[in-house]
């Protein structure tokens, strides 16, 4: 199906999220949409898939102008969208997920549907058990399920929003292969991403968005530097790695074993020096998060030891870990990090060491104001945290950390943030390292992991690599490892 977008405008309050975007995509094309976070990619896709209505502009399918008012309408026009976090029903069965939303009689004929499902997934070489539960599937398999569901419903345009986040290298290859098959069938694929690598490998052509505007259309062969220039305006420098010599041991992890219902991590040994930064790489759910939460004291390990500055903390409570200078910064800012409904001042009062019984209001407001200034948070002390933007919330989280700290544990320090905030946050973190704080962080962004870490530890399905030197590791090597390839050599190396 030919898709034409003409002069799409969309405002959110003062933000001009889509500014006069026009784009024509012929059938059978894999169209890349590239741009950094907040460039307007998602908004454009939401307009096309019926989540949002454009303020003005036109959508034309095969020459006919259409109006999409609800996401459910989109599929009747043949437009299907695969969301970054697949919009399915995790506690329900695959087959029920497949059925929900399908037209048909009052009683679904399970026998027929199951046969159809199995038949249909063969086309793409998928192998999902229709009777397993969705929460037992990997993200990659859940994407496959959505692809089957949408094409079965008659989708001829398939929109994929950042589909390569959180899936393994193998599953990515599989996904790309599937998308190529679909394109050959004459379907239109719109691939939204901020990953140059993926766009380069897959797309027939790429449109680049920046600050809500379409800044260019590129056909292969893609020149990486040109794409980067289009995305960011001007070439950016991200600051050089600050290498320092470390001596004192900060944290010793000795034969640590962690278990839960789905995952077993065995025998992790690691020594972290003062001021060192360790990056944890791995696809979502490979065990990094468990590892971080164990080091923070939130999860109790099955066996092994956690020794901080010579003090054995194993089996102690989370509060004890905190008191000894370990701080944990979770990824979900408004779920675990900050408290909606409380002001910035109240957050700073809570994070401070309590002095006396009554709160000294004048003093805490002062502290809040000075921290807000120091961390350039856009807001005032009386602002409730949920009113801040994501970047400012992340800054607030950093501002809440105590000084001095022995160890900071972070999940996705810069996920969802723009480049400016990212650079700012890392500069603040590096300041901490200079003061002798060690940092362990996990990130889905391999560039971030390599750029900011001294050493990298790779996780795959509970397997844990020995620390790799970040300077001598490439993105490709990491990519293979998190996808489960090349572990034999790694394990042999570690024996030496």
């Amino acid at each position: 199906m030919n898709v034409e977008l003409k002069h799409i405008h969309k405002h959110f309050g003062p933000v001009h999220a889509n500014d006069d975007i026009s784009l024509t995509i012929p059938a059978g094309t894999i169209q890349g949409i590239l741009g950094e976070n907040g460039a307007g990619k998602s908004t454009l896709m939401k307009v096309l898939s019926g989540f949002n209505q454009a303020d003005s502009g036109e959508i034309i399918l095969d020459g006919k102008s259409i109006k999409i008012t609800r996401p459910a309408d989109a599929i009747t026009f043949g437009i299907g969208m695969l969301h970054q976090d697949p919009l399915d029903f995790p506690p329900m069965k695959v087959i029920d997920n497949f059925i929900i939303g399908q037209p048909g009689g009052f009683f679904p004929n399970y026998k027929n549907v199951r046969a159809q499902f199995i038949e249909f997934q063969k086309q793409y070489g998928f192998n999902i058990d229709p009777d397993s539960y969705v929460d037992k599937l990997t993200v990659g398999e859940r994407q496959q399920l959505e692809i089957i569901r949408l094409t079965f419903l008659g989708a001829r345009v398939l929109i994929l929003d950042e589909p390569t986040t959180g899936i393994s290298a193998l599953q990515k290859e599989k996904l790309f292969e599937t998308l190529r098959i679909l394109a050959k069938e004459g379907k239109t694929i719109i691939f939204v991403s901020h990953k140059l690598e993926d766009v380069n490998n897959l797309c027939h052509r790429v449109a680049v968005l920046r600050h809500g505007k379409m800044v260019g259309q590129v056909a292969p062969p893609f020149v990486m530097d040109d794409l980067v220039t289009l995305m960011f305006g001007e070439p950016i420098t991200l600051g050089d790695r600050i290498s320092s010599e470390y001596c004192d041991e900060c944290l010793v992890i000795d034969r640590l074993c962690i278990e839960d219902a789905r995952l077993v991590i065995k025998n992790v040994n690691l020594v972290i020096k003062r001021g060192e930064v360790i990056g944890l790489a791995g696809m979502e759910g490979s065990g990094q998060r468990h590892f971080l939460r164990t080091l923070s004291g939130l999860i109790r390990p099955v066996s092994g030891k956690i020794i901080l500055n010579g003090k054995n903390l194993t089996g102690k409570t989370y509060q004890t870990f905190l008191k000894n200078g370990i701080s944990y910064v979770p990824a979900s800012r408004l779920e675990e990090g900050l408290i909606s409904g409380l002001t910035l001042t109240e957050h700073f009062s809570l994070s401070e060491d309590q002095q006396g019984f009554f709160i000294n209001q004048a003093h805490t407001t002062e502290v809040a104001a000075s921290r807000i200034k120091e961390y350039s948070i856009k807001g005032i002390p009386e602002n409730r945290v949920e009113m801040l933007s994501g970047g400012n919330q992340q800054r607030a989280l950093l501002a809440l950390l105590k000084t001095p700290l022995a160890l900071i544990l972070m999940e996705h320090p810069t996920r969802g943030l723009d480049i400016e905030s990212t650079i700012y946050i890392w500069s603040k973190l590096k300041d901490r390292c200079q003061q002798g704080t060690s940092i362990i962080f996990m990130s889905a962004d391999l560039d971030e992991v390599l750029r900011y870490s001294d050493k990298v530890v790779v996780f795959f399905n509970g397997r844990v690599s020995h620390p790799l030197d970040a300077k001598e590791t490439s993105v490709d090597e990491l990519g293979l490892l998190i996808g489960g390839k090349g572990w034999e050599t790694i394990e042999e190396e570690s024996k030496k």
Partner: protein
Amino acid sequence: MDSTIWVSLGGILAAASPIIFAVMGETLTERAGIINLSVNGLILLTAMSGFVVAYETNSLILGFLAGAGIGALVALIVAFSSISLKQSQVAVGFVLAMLCRDLAYFLGNPYVGEQGIRVPSMPIPGLADIQILGPLFFRQDLQVYSSIILIVIAYIWVFKTRPGLMMQGIGERPAAAFVRGANVNRMRYIYTAIGGALVGMAGPMYSLNVKAGWMGPISGLDGIGWIALAITIFGAWNPLRGAFGVYLFVLLQWLSLVLQPVLTAIPSQVLQVAPFPLMILTLLLVNMGNADWVERTLAAMPEPLRRIMARILRAMRTQQPASLGVPFENE
């Protein structure tokens, strides 16, 4: 075996029928993502109004219709305040529970102690004389038959039909249901109203049958609604498991009555609350697996024991619809 036992067990089916309606109604409501906490007051209000309507019009059907209508109406207030006004469902539900109770006592005052009409017994010819099964299942009234049919319908609806699957989706992940074409908020209104109507049937089932008449505060109906809410959780939002919970609860109450002559030292009021500690205990068992410390303790257990304990806990544990009580806004 003594046939009187089967007759009294048949009585349990009868006594359970109103609670079955209330639990099925609440199960449907909560499956769609709304908590209707007003059940206790609602049963009292509909018991009173069902009785009064039937008494004044001499029509059982109108009495039940009044109950269902009022039930749906009160449920719609819960739906409106939570869906359209984004207020706390627990707060509004609790206020309505109180308000409905007081309304029932206030408006029902002139009718206290009046003799009204009753639901007649309706043995099924032929089947009623079968040994054991006859007195147990087939010498009942329409109310008992319909309660059993309701369990089956509710079960099939939730797990086997297309709209039922969508309903599960709405309670689980409304955004995903919306993308699949569901009008989430409208469906939530509808299921809340249907659930409320079913709960509203429970009232007349008492006042026109199980505990015929209206006695005001000494009707002994205050508290049943709270039990129905607890059983809904115990039933893990599954109609069959919920029905099991209802029968278990009524059986325990019956046992406490049977045991009373044996345990004369204990006042009857005390025996009547015997099911409550058991209820709390079962809620404890089904919820314990969700507690953090259990997970932490489990993680520190030696291997084989941990596996076994984890399996037991997971089998018992119930997980509520993920979006229960969470309002839905399509971006």
